[in-house]
């Protein structure tokens, strides 16, 4: 399985990348939504998963999700918002825009893997 991690923080991309890498994912990274759209366009086929921060420069995560959902060829991508935005109205907005899951920072690796397990997106058994 493949995942794109979209976060302006290199540290957060590294943390999420380690969690997903240990679970068996091949990882691509982008520092903002616009860069992530370019990454998706450069892939031969869409990844199974995109983990998307909300607050980023250039293009934020909500706009990125909206753009992805406009493209039928990317319909199969599962979109997980991974963000500090914890208010209920933000969660509702993200889900309405097309996010499938929502993970609030700070989070643990176990919490992320549990979300992926619920989505049927754990490529390897991790003991969760």
């Amino acid at each position, binding site marked *: 399985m493949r995942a794109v991690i979209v976060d*302006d*923080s*290199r*540290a*957060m991309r*590294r*943390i999420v990348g*380690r969690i997903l890498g240990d679970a068996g994912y091949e990882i691509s990274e982008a520092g903002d939504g616009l860069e992530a759209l370019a990454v998706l366009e450069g892939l031969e086929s869409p990844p199974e998963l995109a983990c998307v921060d909300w*607050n*980023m*420069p250039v293009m934020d995560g909500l706009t990125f999700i909206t753009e992805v959902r406009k493209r039928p060829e990317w319909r199969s991508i599962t979109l997980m918002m991974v*963000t*500090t*935005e*914890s*208010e209920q*109205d933000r969660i509702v907005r993200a889900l309405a825009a097309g996010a499938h899951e929502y993970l*609030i*920072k*700070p*989070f*643990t690796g176990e919490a992320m893997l549990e979300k992926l397990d619920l989505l049927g997106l754990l490529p390897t058994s991790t003991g969760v």
Partner: protein
Amino acid sequence: MTSASAPDEALVLAAIEQVWGSMLYASAEPWPADRPAEFESGLQAQIELRGEWNGRLVLTCDSEVATQIAGAMLGVGPDEGLEQPDVHDAVGEVLNVVGGSVKGALPGTSALGLPGVSEVTAVPSRGESFVVSWGDAPVYVQIVPDAA
């Protein structure tokens, strides 16, 4: 408005304790008021909050502490070497997550800015900040309302 719904020290400390515990695998304790907090040079991270309360959160720590925080966050040992951009980014992200927790606890709708990190040679005075521990070292935290 900058005072009616201002985040207080207890709220910010609770957010720091949560982030220290879940992201850095460390505990945050209030720094003893009578204990000196030595500092030569370090990093200062800032993030803006906009909403019913307008202002910024500021976190200042020694360079070595910043490197330790980044190492704990990234699972990198002291001998593995972290480049300065990685340290700046990690400290900024720590404050970003603290800011997100604080924002979520404030009344009304607020917006969080993007974190900025710079090098500093002085820390805020104890009257302008509260201090939490990173291991045996101090980390200075300020809640700074916009000027009226």
